[in-house]
């Protein structure tokens, strides 16, 4: 069997001395789409920030392996260059920096070389068309004054350009109307190949109507308490998260 894209082993993470992740175990193989579902505050987003290397999220114990390589000591840019990509729940505005300038520098950093402007434009235009991103976007300042939907489209546009081996989507569906959700989901599906993997973190089931996960994990109090196939997401939607606590024994999946 090939090396998994991601292996998380007994991962415990604290933010400002408060333990948020309490022993997460997760293995994602090439070609797989995994969804993590859970209530607000269950630690889902902490997992995505920790995988990307946010300095405020301190790993207390456990391992994170990307394609077999420990990433715990790597800075966020090193992880990005290695092949991890995160679509943010709340993309940050950087006033004065145009989207096109930013995308170009980002692509250059990740690919390790500059690409000719013409080629870059062509690639960009094609992706923009697919994601319903207007031309005027390119000259606007990065995420500055963007609507929720615009930000999310731009996140998917970035990941599509950077083409990571592990795509982490942190609540990408939040704040999207149904049309935007469809377009963004199509963008996500276009990203998926047999060689990469997608980790989709969400509160609601609705994005899973468009992006079909192979595995669904339920997150509660800093760890995965239940795992199943896409059927599990539907049950969660119908019966709520309390049902998991009552009926599924955590020890059964740990």
């Amino acid at each position, binding site marked *: 069997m090939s090396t998994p894209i991601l292996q998380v082993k007994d991962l415990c993470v604290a933010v400002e001395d408060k333990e948020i992740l309490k022993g997460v175990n997760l293995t994602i193989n090439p070609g797989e789409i995994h969804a993590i579902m859970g209530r607000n505050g269950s630690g889902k987003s902490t997992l995505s920030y920790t995988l990307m290397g946010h300095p*405020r999220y301190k790993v207390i114990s456990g391992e994170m392996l990307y394609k077999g390589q420990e990433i715990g000591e790597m800075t966020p840019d090193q992880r*990005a260059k290695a092949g991890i990509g995160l679509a943010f729940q709340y993309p940050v505005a950087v006033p004065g920096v145009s989207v096109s300038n*930013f995308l170009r520098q980002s692509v250059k950093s990740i690919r390790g070389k500059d690409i000719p402007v013409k080629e870059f434009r062509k690639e960009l235009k094609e992706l923009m068309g697919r994601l319903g991103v207007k031309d005027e976007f390119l000259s606007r300042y990065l995420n500055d004054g963007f609507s929720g939907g615009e930000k999310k489209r731009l996140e998917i546009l970035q990941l599509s350009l950077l083409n990571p081996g592990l795509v982490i989507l942190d609540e990408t569906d939040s704040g999207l109307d149904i049309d935007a959700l469809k377009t963004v989901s199509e963008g996500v599906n276009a990203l998926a190949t047999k060689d990469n993997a997608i980790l989709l973190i969400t509160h609601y089931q609705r994005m899973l109507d468009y992006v079909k996960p192979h595995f669904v994990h339920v997150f509660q109090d800093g760890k995965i308490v239940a795992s199943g196939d896409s059927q599990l997401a539907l049950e969660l939607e119908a019966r709520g998260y309390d049902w998991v606590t009552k009926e599924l024994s955590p020890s059964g999946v740990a």
Partner: protein
Amino acid sequence: MSADLAFEPPSVESSVIDDIGNDYKYGFSDKEDYIFKSGRGLTREIVCKISEMKKEPEWMLKFRLRALDIFLKKPMPTWGNCGLLNDIDFDNIYYYIKPSQNSEKNWDDVPEGIKNTFDRLGIPEAERKFLAGVTAQYESEVVYHSIREDLEKEGVIFLDMDSALREHPEIVREHFATVIPAADNKFAALNSAVWSGGSFIWVPPGVKVEIPLQAYFRINAENMGQFERTLIIAEPGSFVHYIEGCTAPTYSTDSLHSAVVELIAKPGAHIRYTTIQNWSKNVYNLVTKRAVAHEDAKVEWVDGNLGSKLTMKYPAIYLLGPRAHGEVLSIAFAGEDQHQDAGAKIVHAAPDTTSLIVSKSISKNGGRTSYRGLIKVYPKATGVKSSVKCDALLMDETSRSDTYPTMEVDEKDVNIEHEATVSKVGEEQLFYLMSRGLTQDEATAMIVNGFFEPFTKELPLEYAVELNRLIQLEMEGSVG
């Protein structure tokens, strides 16, 4: 501190943000080979000697001597950075240095050493590319001067101040020191006593000088005091854009730059004055800049303060006629051992006058920036609109930024907005950019560059000589 003489573009790999303010590339100095160098310190004799060497009319000598008395009597300012101000040793400064015999019109006639210096600073090169006229001042005197023939034919006068006094005494006498009298402040008085060099521009009615005129100021000697005097008069309906740049060698002891700049925008005229000040860290930069704007006139100060030990500079605009408009757009960068105390003053003295102040500052490595501003509205100046926006960015915990805004509004029918922000280079911004593959330095540079963008976009595209070298290339590193 390294003096990179070759002017090679900075390496992209270098820690871009650390270079700003540290890796000063203009810190080299030339061997001194001067026609005249005054002794240290300021005396009546030196003032007389300057006037005599320049063969000035009697009224100018009297003006200087009266200014000297004012300077000696006036106490030091008791505001701003008093600690640093009181460190100035006025007795240790050279008040007048004449580097060469003449101001040359032909670049080849400029003395070799000085020519090399300006070549290294990119001056004639910039002129060839995009300037309509150039003045190059070295120590106290202008050593090179040129203006495009077509402008001369249209009647535009662009001269160094000393030549203007000789060749156009009547225009100079009518306007000189009318905007900034000698008694305005201690440093204006000092300048008035020992002024030398600077630019004089007179634009005839209705003439629009579409291409910028530039002056470049270079201090070379240690403990030099440079006191240029600039006067720009835009006759009704005319336009001119003037750019000045400044550098100096790095010495362990201090030099003093204390200029006086007066702008007169007559009805419907438009003056834009751009400064890219990049003094070495041993220069006190204490400058008085003031403009008057008459009916329907427009004055813009675009002011970039990137160097010096202490800068105290508050470009002012007096809006004297109805519908006059004033703008002060400035950036300041303070690194270790630097204090940029800069700001703006707008005086609304007529109805329907409007103004805009945008001030952006960055402090790093314990550097300090201050915004000090005044908006004054006189009674009966109805319909005034003014907007002030100050943004400060702190790069670390040891750096400091303060805002001292003053509003004196004696009219009710006005609309004044003031907005001030202080932010730190955000952990979330850095993380976001780094998650897209940018290193921490690249990400920081991108944030800083974006912060300054409202300023840089106001500069002529071609004006890459100073600021692009400093900000665009060094900070962005990999502009494609």
